[in-house]
């Protein structure tokens, strides 16, 4: 099953490689990983999407918790949460396909953030599934480049 694991870790050099190294050394799977500073400058927030059965996810959470730089570990999937992912897609546009592409962008609440002579760069944000659906809706031959941020998320409760 797909799990979203959210970490707060010390904002120190090497913290990211400790987490990434743990996953490769123990053979855990990473679907996506995002990391950035938070409002507390001493902390980074990392969001990892991993796929595994309950035992593996339990081990992942425990092993992450064991890392000295990790301050908190939360399995967001086990609680009420919001997940978002953003994608930038560069799309080949010509007069014959433009109308259909515009329709999909509209349908998925996308934004055209850049236009060139024959391309659009489109931004779509939402749950990963929504991003997947958008990418599937666009004719694959028209997609020139895809760059996804990976999932980030927060727990809905005030505190956890």
């Amino acid at each position: 099953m797909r799990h979203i694991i959210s970490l707060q870790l010390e904002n120190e050099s090497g913290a990211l490689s400790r987490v990434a190294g743990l996953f490769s050394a123990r053979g855990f799977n990473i679907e996506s990983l995002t990391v950035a500073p938070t409002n507390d400058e001493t902390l980074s927030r990392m969001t990892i999407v991993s796929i595994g059965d309950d035992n593996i996810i339990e081990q992942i959470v425990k092993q992450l918790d064991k890392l000295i730089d990790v301050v908190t570990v939360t399995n967001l999937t086990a609680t009420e949460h919001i997940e978002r992912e953003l994608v930038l897609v560069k799309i080949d546009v010509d007069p014959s396909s433009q109308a259909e592409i515009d329709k999909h962008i509209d349908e998925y609440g996308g934004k055209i953030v850049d236009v060139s002579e024959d391309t659009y760069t489109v931004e779509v944000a939402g749950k990963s599934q929504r991003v997947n659906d958008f990418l599937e809706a666009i004719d694959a031959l028209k997609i020139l480049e895809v760059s996804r941020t990976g999932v980030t998320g927060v727990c809905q409760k005030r505190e956890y």
Partner: protein
Amino acid sequence: MKLNGAQILVNCLQNEGVEHIFGYPGGAVLHIYDALDACDNIAHILVRHEQGAVHGADGYARVSGKCGVALVTSGPGLTNAVTGIATAHMDSIPMVVISGQVSSAVIGNDAFQEVDAVGITRSCVKHNFLVKDINDLANVVKKAFHIATTGRPGPVLIDITKDTTIAEIEFDGYPKSINMRSYQPEIKVDAGQIDKAVALIMQAKKPIVYSGGGSVIGNASEVLRSFTRNTNFPITQTLMGLGAYPATDAQSLGMLGMHGTYEANMAMHDSDCVIAVGARFDDRITGNLDKFCPYAKIIHIDIDPSSVGKTVAIDVAIIGQVNDALNALIQALKDKKLANIDAWWKQIEEWRSVDSMAYQTKSGVIKPQSVIEALYEVTQGEAIVTSDVGQHQMWAAQYYPFDKPRRWINSGGLGTMGFGLPAAMGAKLADPKADVACVTGEGSIQMMLQELSTMLQYNTPVKIINLNNGYLGMVRQWQEFFYEKRYAMSYMDALPDFVKLAESYGHIGIKVEKEQDLKPALIEAFKQKDRTVFVDILTDPSENVFPMIPSGAGHHEMLLAGRDEMASTNDEGLHLV
């Protein structure tokens, strides 16, 4: 007081009560060595190879219970230390390793003797630090010792750039305490889990205590004894746990696992309630996981939550110090009536009567098992025994019953050949009055031979018991059993004359070729209190370690000497190490 980084480091080490450092100098640590030389209450042991430094600090830590300290230079100094660090990590040994690093201005430039020490060691340390700013140094040292020695202990590396050791600041003393929001190792035992465990224990008709290295590290011998006395439960111990509970006690079933006793493994298999104490269910213990303890409810006491449920599903987990957890169980069981386990003991005695450690003697050949038995006799069971890795390690564990903890010093997790000799040196420094024996083989000993020189320089007399069978015995045994006797590269031609070798290092060498010479030679060796003696004993080259659970088999599928001369395995087993 204005101090440079090197002086601050030494000051910190003094404040931590460090008395011995095992190390080897080099360019990046010259300032540290300069400061160390000016300090007269820390003894520095100049090893001959950095791996020896870390194993030395490791042996020292295992015997003393204190934090071992090693100091190496950048680049090859650090890479040579890695095997030692990984060894300590696998066995949860408290240790601080200090490595020099090139100056921060040239980090990343592929400077002379530069390696990414923090990157290389990341997966084999409990934590590591790179210090580039002298203002961080004292805090980092404080954190390093705190992390290394608390919770589940382990090695911590401090990589210090050379410019940090040279810079000067006004030093306002070593921090008295440290608070880390991301590291809270003290976990209080949960009362609810104790209740659940008690409920299982009260119903148990076939209970067994399975105790591991955590009982040694957690200094739990006394409480372990109280627990088994109060409950009358049998106890088996892992390779790493030997000595925490007296092996000669009637309730002890000996070691379990791949080369454990028949009674221990059969009892594990048939048990209805396994109480794991500071043990981590590794593959040498469990054998085939599908066949592991099929009837048992399992209670697992461990300080490390990630050990729980890692390989085996657990019914009740008690996270915390072994002592705290066992004490809580003892308290909770005080007025409770336990199930009658007379029938269980009767069954265990039947298994015990199989005498799985019996071995065949052959005239004209020295059996390796008999060497360990003679060693036990000559040292009256009171020696600290270190070992290398292989058949001799198993025989030492099987035939030298340890009654006290911190006397059996071996690389159980990583299985590092070369560990025994430097560890013996560290053991002797930690406990100078004790007799220290290093049980080794002609393969392992040649991996760290150079430390014989260190042992002369620092006068650390140990007795090297070399079970010389001319083979990499454990490799040969597996080739005999599982590779149709194709002995690929397990035979060493051209062995050195170990007697002359010992003598050239300034020690005493004794060669034993005949059975009748064995005991007199050992008596003579241990009489030489102030000398290191290398006893080279030619043992039966064809002897195998029994009993044995072949890879892929369960506890109840043990092979016994005399009954099953040949093991075989299945395809699944061949994939296992």
